[in-house]
């Protein structure tokens, strides 16, 4: 089984549980490659991929780039700030230009929801969504799922609490779409102004009180708070936000003793997460970054035609 018949990876919303499991399983041997002394396999030699990021990012872009390189794909990063976007070229024209250079796959991030879907409709290249607006960030959720599964042995039946700006978070949404396929109890918690309308219909439980939301949780996933949100009046001050929603030692006591702490990064220490937690024994934040490379390797590999047996045998 591979993902070759799936042209694009746009979100977890429309992925099956089996497809997600395949990616997670394939990431296991990929992680071994990262830990080797010689971190390169010839699997994707002759394939070309490009990352196009219309929004700043360090870890996701770098993660995709190195994942492609470990698999021997030729990897190019389009620096949008210096590209033709500044000259007023339409996205469609930019994509066509990239396509005719011979790229097989494009990794795209955009501040506007649905832009990767629009691009996917207009190109023969495979498209991976590296985050679109407040819609989805599927590879982040996949690496979160991988990290949880690696530590807990399973995803089935876990209680996962997602803390922070749910309204604007594509990480929250992709996690919800992914985890709900594994029968997890998903809780979202944050200020009411940052809660997405009718989110309960996604099968999640909605909380405004962090301690209640953490009670008995197996996993807590802490979202980055965008400081700009304060200026649009969605919460009064960062101090008040931290008072109510910063995950610290005291609050985390409500969760299970073996709770896992995730954060997609970059962190605002002292705002959404206390340093004692970020650097604490339960924090998997650095582990997530490594796993991100493994998951993206698995994805690139499966999408560009590899099968799981090929890499394990």
């Amino acid at each position, binding site marked *: 089984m591979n993902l070759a018949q799936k042209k694009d990876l746009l979100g977890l*919303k429309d992925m099956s549980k089996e497809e997600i499991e395949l990616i997670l399983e394939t990431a296991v041997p990929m992680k071994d490659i990262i830990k080797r002394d010689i971190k390169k396999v010839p699997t994707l030699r002759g394939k070309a991929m490009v990352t196009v990021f219309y929004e700043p990012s360090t870890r996701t872009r770098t993660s995709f780039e190195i994942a492609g390189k470990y698999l021997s794909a030729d990897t190019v990063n389009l620096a949008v700030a210096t590209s033709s976007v500044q000259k007023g070229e339409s*996205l*469609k024209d930019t994509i066509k230009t990239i396509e005719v250079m011979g790229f097989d796959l494009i990794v795209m991030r*955009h501040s506007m*929801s*649905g832009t990767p879907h629009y691009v996917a409709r207009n190109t023969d290249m495979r498209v991976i969504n590296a985050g679109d607006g*407040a819609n989805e960030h599927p590879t982040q959720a996949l690496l979160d799922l991988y990290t949880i599964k690696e530590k807990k042995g399973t995803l089935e039946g876990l209680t996962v609490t997602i803390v922070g700006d749910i309204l604007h978070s594509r990480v929250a949404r992709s996690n919800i779409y992914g985890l709900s396929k594994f029968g997890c109890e998903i809780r979202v918690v944050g200020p009411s102004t940052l809660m*997405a309308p009718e989110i309960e219909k996604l099968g999640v439980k909605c909380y405004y009180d962090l301690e209640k939301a953490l009670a008995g949780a197996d996993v807590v996933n802490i979202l980055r708070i965008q400081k700009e949100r304060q200026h649009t009046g969605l919460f009064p001050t960062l101090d008040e936000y931290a008072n109510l929603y910063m995950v610290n030692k005291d609050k985390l006591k409500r969760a299970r003793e073996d709770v896992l702490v995730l954060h997609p990064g970059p962190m605002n220490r002292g705002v959404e997460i206390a340093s004692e937690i970020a650097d604490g024994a339960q924090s998997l934040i650095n582990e997530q970054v490594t796993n991100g490379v493994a998951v993206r390797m698995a994805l690139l590999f499966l999408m560009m035609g590899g099968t799981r047996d090929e890499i394990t045998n």
Partner: protein
Amino acid sequence: MKLLIKNGRVIDPMNGIDEQLDVLINNGLIAEIGKNLAAGKNERIIDAGRKIICPGFIDMHVHLRDPGYLYKEEIASGTRAAAAGGFTTICCMPNTKPVIDNAAVAAYVRQIAAKSGVVNVLPIGAITRNQKGEEITEMADLIAAGCIAVSDDGKPVEKAEIMRNALEYAKMFDLPVLSHCEDTSLSKDGQIHEGFYSTYYGYKGIPAAAEEIMAARDIILAKLTGGHIHICHVSSRGTVDMIRKAKAEGVNITCEVTPHHLTLTDKATGTYDANTKVNPPLRSQEHIKALMEGIVDGTIDCIATDHAPHALESKDCEYNFAAFGISGLETAVPLAMSLVNKKFTVNKMIHLFTAGPAGVLCLDKGSMGIGDTADLTILDPEKIKTVDPNRFYSKGKNTPFAGKKLKGWPYMTIVNGKIIAEDGRMIEE
């Protein structure tokens, strides 16, 4: 030239007619309506068997884009789209460049319409100069130049004081004030209706409250002034409820609804196809239900398309960058027909396109009296066709209905006694 339309079912809601009758047209006027009219010499006979003969359909909310945006639409193309879509009269909104905020621009529109248009074009003037919401326009002069209403459509009149003055002033001339209700502080940066699907697809939402707050204000101002307020493109339950209550209290208020708000929900935005992007946004099933109730109990006066043609590149792009609007003239009738017998009767539907808008604007149209100008729309309720924007006469191919198979289409459009469109195609000389 005489025209005898035989064997059709005549439905004229204004005159309460619904029966099998023949219609004779002579010299551009309706000469006779009756049973089994005998064909005379030099008469062209149209067999309207299994068809419905109605007064010419009126669309009181159209963007023709002339002057200023001829790349989006022209009066020639827009009026042909209207004719092909079954309309004999359209009212064009003033958000052109320059804005129709003075008699000269209104006169220009009428002049171009007389020269290159194929249906009746009635301009709507702006409420405020340059649609800036600051100074009211010379309404008497606009009326003299042929304007039948005023509107700052596309923009709300932000200041209550200005809206109050506009309603007071327009009242002197019995001039309807058409209001685009939107609190822009609430709708800012919004892309689709705020609700489950804005969460599910990750869009910034536009709450129904953005429309309802302005509608509430305008109803209160209409009550204060006695002026005639008409709420454009009503899309939310709250607005329908307030209008119903205001009508019961005797407020001078009317309203319209668009075909797309009746037939599509916010779920359609999941494709991220910007053809689903429209203002006010496509709303949830619950709101559609309220619109249907409003139609059935008479709260909603008419259907209007809000025909908003755009250039391809304004829609073939990132959703947030795309322009709001749907090219609606050539799909309105079949969309409304798709609701007939499910949500309301065919008589009601015809009312919403004829007597309804004529009543809102006090037009001497929308009925079929002997001696009236022969503006007629003939419907073929059995015709099944697939929407193909490439065949649109409108320059705006922006429709979320492309590829949709619909039943019940306009069969013939007759303006001034002349057949101008048949089966959706123009009959050009």
